[in-house]
């Protein structure tokens, strides 16, 4: 028995040093009254009092909600079209593979891709200018909240498609037929059969998308270099240099992010349990 637990030691030691210990550093740092002994809530309070930090949280939450809802909705439609829309199998698996690649094509290369397309020198903008209409003269710019949202969608859609696909697959043909037999039209099928079954999946995946977007750093960095005030970027700049003016506040900001993510994952897990009922 004892040598078995020994086999688990490398894992636990690794997790301890590089996962749990850094996390506890953040946790302790948020509450520690250093250099004095004892603990304090002042940094947590400061989180809510700092307009800069609170604003950053809010912008991060906003963009995450937006891309989660938008990405979730459009991704669901895409997935449904791909799976139920009668696509030939080869095309469908090609599409799924592409989604796998696209959901990983995030960060700096993605920012570069959209800059190539939509920056003032971008291909689409040049094309439109040649046709007489330059969006930049009409107030459009890529380097804003909305521009960033468009870019985020690029990895949100495929993620939604990949995760929701098994749930859509699980919608059995018999259910459609059964509801037709009982005289239901398409709308009633959706309202009373399909959506109630799919809703936990859809909501759960949207939460996952939220978390995905909330923690994103490199994409925003590559696109705007820190112009847009996201909480991830704030934490990053706190690490390069104490922009918040207080080390404890930096820890507290990290802790806040962990709390948001933990809430998201918990919500997802709970909704997953509900989904599993139908996917047997």
């Amino acid at each position, binding site marked *: 028995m004892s040598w078995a637990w020994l*086999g688990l030691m490398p894992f636990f030691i690794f997790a301890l040093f590089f996962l749990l210990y850094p996390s506890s550093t953040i946790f302790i740092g948020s509450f520690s009254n250093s250099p004095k002994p004892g603990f304090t809530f002042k940094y947590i309070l400061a989180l809510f009092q700092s307009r800069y930090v609170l604003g950053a949280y809010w912008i991060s939450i906003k963009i995450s909600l937006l891309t989660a809802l938008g990405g979730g909705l459009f991704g669901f439609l895409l997935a449904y079209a*791909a799976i139920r829309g009668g696509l030939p199998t080869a095309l469908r698996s090609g599409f799924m*593979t592409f989604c796998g690649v696209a959901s990983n094509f*995030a960060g700096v290369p*993605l920012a*570069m891709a959209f800059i190539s397309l939509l920056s003032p020198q971008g291909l689409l903008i040049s094309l439109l200018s040649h046709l007489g209409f330059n969006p930049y003269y009409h107030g459009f710019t890529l380097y804003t909240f909305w521009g960033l949202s468009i870019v985020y969608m690029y990895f949100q859609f495929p993620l939604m498609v990949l995760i929701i696909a098994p749930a859509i697959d699980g919608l059995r043909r018999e259910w459609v037929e059964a509801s037709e037999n009982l005289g239901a039209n398409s709308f009633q099928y959706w309202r009373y059969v399909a959506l109630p079954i799919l809703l936990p999946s859809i909501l759960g995946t949207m939460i996952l998308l939220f978390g995905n977007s909330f923690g994103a750093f490199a994409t925003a960095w590559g696109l705007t270099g820190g112009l847009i005030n996201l909480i991830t970027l704030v934490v990053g700049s706190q690490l390069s240099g104490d922009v918040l003016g207080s080390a404890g506040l930096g820890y507290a900001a990290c802790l806040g992010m962990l709390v948001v*993510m933990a809430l998201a994952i918990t919500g997802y897990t709970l909704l997953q349990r509900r989904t599993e009922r139908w996917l047997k």
Partner: protein
Amino acid sequence: MILGALYFFLPLLATFIFSLKAKLGTLSLLAYQQTFADQAFVYNFTYSVIWALSTIVVGILILAPTAYVIRLKVPKARTAVEFITLLPFVIPAVVLVFGLVRTFSQPPLLIVNSPIVLVAGYAVLSMPYMYRSIDTGLRSIDVRTLTEAGQSLGAGGARIMFDVILPNIRVAILSGSFLTFAIVVGEMVLAQYLSKPAFGPYMAYQMQEQAYEPAAMAIISFSLTWIALGIIQLVGRGGAQAQIGGGH
């Protein structure tokens, strides 16, 4: 669907065309040539590959025995271990690196400047995927029988692990390895804040300096990811769910 296809396809096309525009007036591969000739690029990219390979080795060395022991000997530990392997999903990369830097930049563990922290950080980030791959692989082979066969032939624990079990879950390990590779090479946050040479921060830097080389780099990076995930699909007989949200 058409709209979706356009949305996905256009940025890639634009990047590709942009990357061909380095030579004035004509489409050429000049940007690619300059990229590969760029010493700094080769330096940073090579390091990214080194980090990726190191992370893969560390991941396998730590996670394969763990998954094996849980499956065979200590099933009770499963919940705890799986919970830990899912923690990286809750911790955004920037928060992880914040914790790592703060933890390891003070004595007694003043190792923040060593590559150990970077590789360990990458191992943490890729842990969910690597562990899941290995676990799936172990699920598909008869671990008990293989172990007993090995033991009856006189092999000790390590021998069984490396000569009996690992070769039988080759596919799963390859799958996890390619995923890890894609994650590490595309990663920017950890490398930047730990000040280590890597593709991610270098490309971010080049985006401010050059116009066309970053586009070439983006295409290179995208192709690598595609190749890595394509290999996983091929090798994994379509069983692997290659969905990642890493490195962004």
